[in-house]
């Protein structure tokens, strides 16, 4: 990676080159490819609140609108040609069916202006049912391929979600944990965009072997994205999210492989 290739974008995101393509790591957690007009967001987990309510835990039902409002702000700011939802857009297969009327209307309005592309994830294998736009297993954007789950081993040019990366740094005896992008300039993992989504520390073994060069984290601060070197990132203690993630991984990898178009 070259020094002048990473710089602050006007919105205080980080501008960089990903496989040679201009890319901006946005404060919102979205990936913006300005030369291609593509805005990509991963792991929205819409209707996570209502998924818990079904089981008797009445989490506030406002997560979907909170997440959509952030997405709408990005669309208004950047006027993309295409918005790519990189999988796990809904927390479960029934999520799209539980959308409140006005939330559904917002997505329909957005579809009237930009091309919506839904990548299927392990939480929403069928994609976005009953919503405008097309569902795919993966989609190319210049030299970059957008997928849900990162394929194991090196995959230059791949941008994925699924892992919900977050990172922890410490200074002055205190530590700060934040959602983050993880990249080595050839490959990128996006943070989860959803309002209720947790995070998996980038030092977890789930990230092992994904990067050819030592990656760095784009940690999301209040109004900017901070580039932090790998050596500064601290591991986590207990993390049950990790176990869940691993269990979820296997079947979807196979499902994705079979679903992929030749």
């Amino acid at each position: 990676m070259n020094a002048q290739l990473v710089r602050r974008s006007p919105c205080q995101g980080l501008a960089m080159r990903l496989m040679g393509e201009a890319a901006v790591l946005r404060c919102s957690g979205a990936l913006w490819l300005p030369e291609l007009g593509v805005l990509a967001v991963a792991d929205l987990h819409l209707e996570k609140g209502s998924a818990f309510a079904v089981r008797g835990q009445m989490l506030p039902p406002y997560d979907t609108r909170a997440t959509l409002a952030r997405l709408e702000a990005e669309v208004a700011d950047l006027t993309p040609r295409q918005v790519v939802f990189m999988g796990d857009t809904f927390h479960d297969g029934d999520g799209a069916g539980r959308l409140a009327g006005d939330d559904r209307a917002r997505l329909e309005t957005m579809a009237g202006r930009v091309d919506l592309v839904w990548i299927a994830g392990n939480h929403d294998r069928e994609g976005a049912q009953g919503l405008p736009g097309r569902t795919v297993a993966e989609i190319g954007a210049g030299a970059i391929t957008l997928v849900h789950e990162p394929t194991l081993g090196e995959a230059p040019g791949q941008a994925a979600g699924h892992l919900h990366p977050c990172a922890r740094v410490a200074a002055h005896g205190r530590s700060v944990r934040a959602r983050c992008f993880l990249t080595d300039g050839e490959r990128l993992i996006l943070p989860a965009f959803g309002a209720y989504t947790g995070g998996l520390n980038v030092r977890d073994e789930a990230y092992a072997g994904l990067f050819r060069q030592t990656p760095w984290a784009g940690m999301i601060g209040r109004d900017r994205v901070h580039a932090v070197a790998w050596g500064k990132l601290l591991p986590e203690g207990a993390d049950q999210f990790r176990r869940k993630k691993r269990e979820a991984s296997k079947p979807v990898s196979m499902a994705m492989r079979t679903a992929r178009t030749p």
Partner: protein
Amino acid sequence: MLRGDEMSGLPPPFSDWFAARGWAPRRHQLEMIAAAQGGEHALLIAPTGGGKTLAGFLPSLIGLSRTPADQRPQGVHTLYLSPLKALSVDVARNLTTPAFEMGLDVRIETRTGDTGQAKRQRQKVLPPEILLTTPEQLALFCAWEGARAWFQALDTVVIDEVHALWHGKRGDLLALGLARLQAFRPNLRRVGLSATVDDPGKIAAWLSPGGAPVRRIQGDPGTPAQIDILMSGGRVPWAGHTAEHAMEEVYEAIRRSRLTLVFVNTRWQAEFAFQRLWALNEDDLPIALHHGSLAAEQRRKVEAAMARGALRAVVCTSTLDLGIDWGDVDLVIQLAAPKGASRLTQRIGRANHRLDEPSRALLVPANRFEMLECQAAREAALEGSYDQEPMRTGTLDTLAQHIMGVACGEPFEMEALHREVTSAEPYRDLSYEQFEEVADLVATGGYALRTYDRFARIVKGRDGRWKARNAMIAQRHRMNVGAIVGAGTLNIRQAIGRKGRLSGGRKVGEAEEWYFEQLSEGDTFIFAGQVWRFLGISGTDVFVTPAPHSEPKIPSWGGSKFPLATSLAERVRGMIQDREHWAVLPEDVREWLELQERKSHIPDAEEMLVETFPRGSRWFLMAYPFEGRLAHTTLAMLLTRRLDRMGVGPLGFVVSDYGLSIWTVEPTDSLDLDELFDQDMLGDDLDAWMDESFLMKRAFRNCALVSGLIERRVPGGEKTGRQVTFSTDLIYDVLRRHQPDHLLLRCARADAAGGMLDVGRLSDMLARIRGRIAHTRLERPSAFSVPLLTQIGRERVGGSAQDLILERQAEAILIAEAEA
């Protein structure tokens, strides 16, 4: 004491039992019996050692003894509730013996979180006649199907140490549970047992069902205690919480006594003191350790050994504050300041449970401020002055939990349950509308956006009565009952197997999660009096292996968890400005005050001292309001916000019970302090800050857990504290934006402003010091500032500091790459 002929009120087995021991019942014990015969609710106020517990049970034992065992109605006759599990176990032991000696055929059993599954099942089928348990178990009983039938024979409920129970959310939940029992058994008699308090009227009001009269019975006062303060011959340290300097003297005091209780304020202090005492223990005195994190079995062993007289000292936390004897304690040592006069009196009462001999206590201040505080506490205790608790309004998150519990137990009618709830004193003024709002929170989360109606947790049946939607919902509620939500705790287990393939062995105890976040693999620490090596965490288990010959990596203690009581703080301020009073202080502490006077300033009782000085590359602003840790934390947070706005660049702060320190990038010595400390910070600044603060998130998490909005335990695994924190933080952010007046946000704000932030106290202080700030501009740290400067703060700074930390780490990859 009474002569034999006055015992005529007692039936033979009882009078014979007293007579055989050459004892006579005390006046208050007979009054308690009279109250029972008159069917009156009763509150007994007596100092420790006055036969208080027996006084509570005598009426029940007499009542039961009048009917042969096989003719009594089946069911619990007397329910005894105490704040501590250990106390229930102990009281059971101390009750079983006289009952047996009197030849009474009464089944006495305990039931706590530690009670095994088999015994629990048996108790459900065949209840004991006297059941000793905790308020949390009562909340669980209320959520049982068939609770009403199970309590069909209930005659009396005894609430021991009620002065320690009535206040707080735990008291709210207990008051609601008692109202439920009263609904089951309208003639149920309530009996409260309390230590001496300043205003027994408040406790009597709390105890009373729906304002019914409560007979107050006063025990005889005990002999005044003998309280000494360890002067440590000119070696009282400037700072610290551990009182390490005094360990040899503490050890000597233990050697000269029969059985010593060494009280400390936190479990880590307990571990530390225990370790140091054993390092000095050349005589191999049996010294034990007792605190809430130790495995229950371990604590039982220590208690039994105390009772047998097999120990010479026990280092303990508040787990041994309450209760009757475990042994013949003749000295109580308070290691580090007691923080409140009531707590001190309670602890001193643990020595010598005989009214005719004085209790002996030794206070060991850990630093120079604490020397002042110990003096103040001693004077307050000798004058019989206690800290006051205000009356409270019942919390609504606790009510939510109770409503769900009732719904799990049996179907209820809204209006009837509202009437029942308002018979509990804390909820006396709760309107039906408020009650309905809480019921809606229970049912669907209480959201303006009504999308969850079809998933409601409680549903209205055709008969108009409400009940839990299904068995699974009820089951999950029962797993989550209780009003105390501590920091997340992890089980400490001795590891079996090798690295990479660890599995859990024996449970050594449990401890707060935050503690382990600061340890790295291979670090050594003290727990349960031993040195362990930290191997790693998996789920809610911490794996450790013994490291007997290692030097422990001493944990950083958080000092006292109790904030300095208001009345005690006032005394300390008075003592500092009263030079004649300094004569009671040891020479080194006097010199320290004189140094402060010479180099900086000694504030008078109405003034607040502020000092500013540069040190290293930073500027320090010190303030000394003496208002306790909580109020200081709030003040520091608000000041940080202001300083941030003023462009001074605050980097962090620490607080103690006595003062606070904020360090900044830019100088603070020319700020307008009257403006900085202006009371208007409690307006918009407080609101704005609270909404974003970590404390508010913590308060919200607590309310969400207590109310049942979030479940801590779900079938198939418990969430650890951090996992719960993480998700509730996200929920908090979303809820705050979309429904800022939500019931739980209001609960959280009230909790945070009260218990956690001490806003009321801060407000009084800011009013008091208006125009009375004494500012000294210094070149180097003052005598008063040293204790604060050596302390490590654990509270996060809000505002832009979070980004500052990220910023600092964001050393540019760029530069490194460009140079490569």
